[in-house]
């Protein structure tokens, strides 16, 4: 019998497809409904399975892996509770356009819909939070579903896909190893042809006296860093990035004006107010950045994106180019003229000087901003940095600069506390030779702290920095500024001893509370390729500035210096 006709089980086929596809690492957690698949994984010599402590950890690891390597991230869970534990991660990957393939076990097809043990309609649950999902009904369909799912996850604007894999389909025999005909339209995975009026697009840009590039996460997905730099340098155009776009343009470049939006730099937000032309490159006019009707209201607004649904979604634009950002820029750049824009650049330099990122470093306590500056220096800006969500995330975005893409891993769209530690672990698996730092808070770290065990088990040298303010700091900041200091449920009066907790997992740690210890602490932290926990005690009242209050526009930005005037810090 020719090999192609020999029958194999669905589970075997799934493993072979993953191998053929080049997947060499998967993150997961076993359970009854996915056992046949795990049995085949056990036999695989090509795929390494990373056993996590919680399925949410598995999917965030897959995200960290995918973001830092540009490859597909794969995670596995069993049916029911295993599958539902993926929901937050799927939503996170959806909002931040991360290519993830989740494979979930499901009860046998004849039990589906009967409230069987550990049954959850994960297909139904994940419809709104995946780019694509499918319930595999027959082993003969596995090859097609696999191919469709991977093409969709990585094609166009990337995103998460889920394949629900019933137990009996895992054991069913099939000889269909290749999909004969895909059911989805090629537009879902092929690069779209470039559409839009390139000439008028370029003409408007060439005429602009004060143009600004506004770069989002799409620029990273499109690997367009080189082209963006070329465009900026050729046209002498300053560049601001969103939280997701950090690294797409070198943070230390003279044309860089830093991050914009709610906690963006004053100079980026002022540049938005005063530019006469703003070119959105793969960003989505997110509500933390742009207020409809007020965003860059005096400017001509232009947008390049691969996702047509982003055009005019929140902010109306004057010029549109649809296509893969890298491809579009390649044809646009030759049409962009070299223009001397020194008055605009000099003006921005003055604003930079007069409105720097600032904080008060006069007391003896450690300021997280100063700490991150030092960390940036000592790690030479080379580390891959993941964060959790809160003040520490914004300080990291402001003070740790990135000159390269795929080194900044943060939950932008969903703002998922608990993302940082597993994302860092996933990144370390994908980049074993890089320094990987997780910047977290005492709140966030406790959301997936069980993954310290994964670090210990696989001896992964992840560096974990915990800024401890004994508060849910960002919540406290809002309560202080907008709720008259009623600190409802934001104060912790109990934290574990993080250093001892690390010791329980054989991870070395240190706690620092005064400035004089900082240098030594960072050296200890970065030393070698071992996991470390560094707990940094910081003042609870320290805040993130500048800040644009929620729902307000660039005009309403509060700067650190404003708080000095009002006496409130």
């Amino acid at each position: 019998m020719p090999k192609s006709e020999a029958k194999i089980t669905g589970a075997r086929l799934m493993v072979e497809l993953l191998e053929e596809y080049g997947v060499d690492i998967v993150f997961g957690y076993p359970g009854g409904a996915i056992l046949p698949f795990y049995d085949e994984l056990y036999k695989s010599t090509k795929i390494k399975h990373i056993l996590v402590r919680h399925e949410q950890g598995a999917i965030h690891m897959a995200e960290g892996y995918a973001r830092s390597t540009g490859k597909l991230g794969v995670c596995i869970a069993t049916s029911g509770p295993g599958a539902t534990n993926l929901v937050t991660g799927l939503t996170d990957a959806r909002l931040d356009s991360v290519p993830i393939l989740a494979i979930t076990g499901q009860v046998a097809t004849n039990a589906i819909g009967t409230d069987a043990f550990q049954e959850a309609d994960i297909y139904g649950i994940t419809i709104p939070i995946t780019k694509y999902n499918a319930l595999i009904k027959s082993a003969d369909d596995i090859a097609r579903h696999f191919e469709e799912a991977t093409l969709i996850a990585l094609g166009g604007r990337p995103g998460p896909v889920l394949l629900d894999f019933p137990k009996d389909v895992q054991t069913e025999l099939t000889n269909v190893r290749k999909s004969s005909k895909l059911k989805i339209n090629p537009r879902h995975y092929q690069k779209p042809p470039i559409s839009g009026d390139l000439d008028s697009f370029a003409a408007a840009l060439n005429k602009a006296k004060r143009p600004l590039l506004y770069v989002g996460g799409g620029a990273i997905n499109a690997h367009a860093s080189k082209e963006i730099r070329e465009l900026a340098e050729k046209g002498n155009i300053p560049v601001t990035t969103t939280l997701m776009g950090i690294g797409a343009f070198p943070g230390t470049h003279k044309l860089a004006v830093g991050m914009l939006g709610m906690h963006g730099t004053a100079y980026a937000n002022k540049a938005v107010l005063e530019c006469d032309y703003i070119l959105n490159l793969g960003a989505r006019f997110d509500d933390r950045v742009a207020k409809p009707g007020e965003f860059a209201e005096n400017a001509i607004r232009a947008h390049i994106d691969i996702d047509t649904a982003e055009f005019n979604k929140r902010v109306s634009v004057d010029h549109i180019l649809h296509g893969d950002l890298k491809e579009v820029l390649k044809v646009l750049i030759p049409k962009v003229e070299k223009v001397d824009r020194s008055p605009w650049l000099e003006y921005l330099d003055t604003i930079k000087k007069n409105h720097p990122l600032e904080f008060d470093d006069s007391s003896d306590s450690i300021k997280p901003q100063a700490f991150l500056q030092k960390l940036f220096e000592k790690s030479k800006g080379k580390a891959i940095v993941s964060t959790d969500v809160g003040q520490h995330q914004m300080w990291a975005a402001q003070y740790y600069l990135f000159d390269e893409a795929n080194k900044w891993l943060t939950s932008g769209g969903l703002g998922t506390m608990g993302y940082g530690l597993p994302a860092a672990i996933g990144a370390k698996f994908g980049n074993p030779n890089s320094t990987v730092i997780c910047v977290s808070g005492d709140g966030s770290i406790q959301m997936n702290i069980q993954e310290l065990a994964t670090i210990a088990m696989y001896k992964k040298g992840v560096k974990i920095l915990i800024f401890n303010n004994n508060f849910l700091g960002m919540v406290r900041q809002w309560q202080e500024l907008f709720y008259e200091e009623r600190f409802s449920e934001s104060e912790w009066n109990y934290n574990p001893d993080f250093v001892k907790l690390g010791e329980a997992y054989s991870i070395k740690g240190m706690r620092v509370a005064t400035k004089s210890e900082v240098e030594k602490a960072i050296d200890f932290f970065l030393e070698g390729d071992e996991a470390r926990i560094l707990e940094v005690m910081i003042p609870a009242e320290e805040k993130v500035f500048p800040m644009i209050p929620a729902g307000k526009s660039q005009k309403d930005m509060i700067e650190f210096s404003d708080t000095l005037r009002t006496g409130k810090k």
Partner: protein
Amino acid sequence: MKHILKILVNNHPGVMSHVSGLFTRRSYNIDSIAVGVTDNPEISSMVIVVKGDDSVVEQVKRQLLKLPDVIDVEDLAYHDCISRELVLVVVQCSDSNRTEIISICEVFQARIADLTKTTFTIEFSGNTRQVNHFIEMMQKYGIEEIARTGQIALRYRS
């Protein structure tokens, strides 16, 4: 402004929830939805009637096109399509008004599908305006039950 969206989708289960989910998530009210298979058994056609201004409907259209199972979306303006809706109405009748109801049905070219001593079951199809009008006419006799299919539509050929 009302829009009639004609959506071609792969004919398999779950597609309906994907599509309708997109509308509910954005809290758009669907006036009606009708689904049927096309001449190609692998493809179904969904006709969805929604209210919304043009830019909103344009957004929905683009979001729909992102769903892998959606093959095509056409926004049919009311005036350039033929639309039909089927309704079944059970109307109370008595000896005294029976002939009156029959003659109204004749005017509307509605078909009496069933009758009992006390009721008529009437079948009527037309565009939404006609269907609404017909139902209104029947209301005074007392409607016991009603079933509407939602609109289906096709673009006029030129």
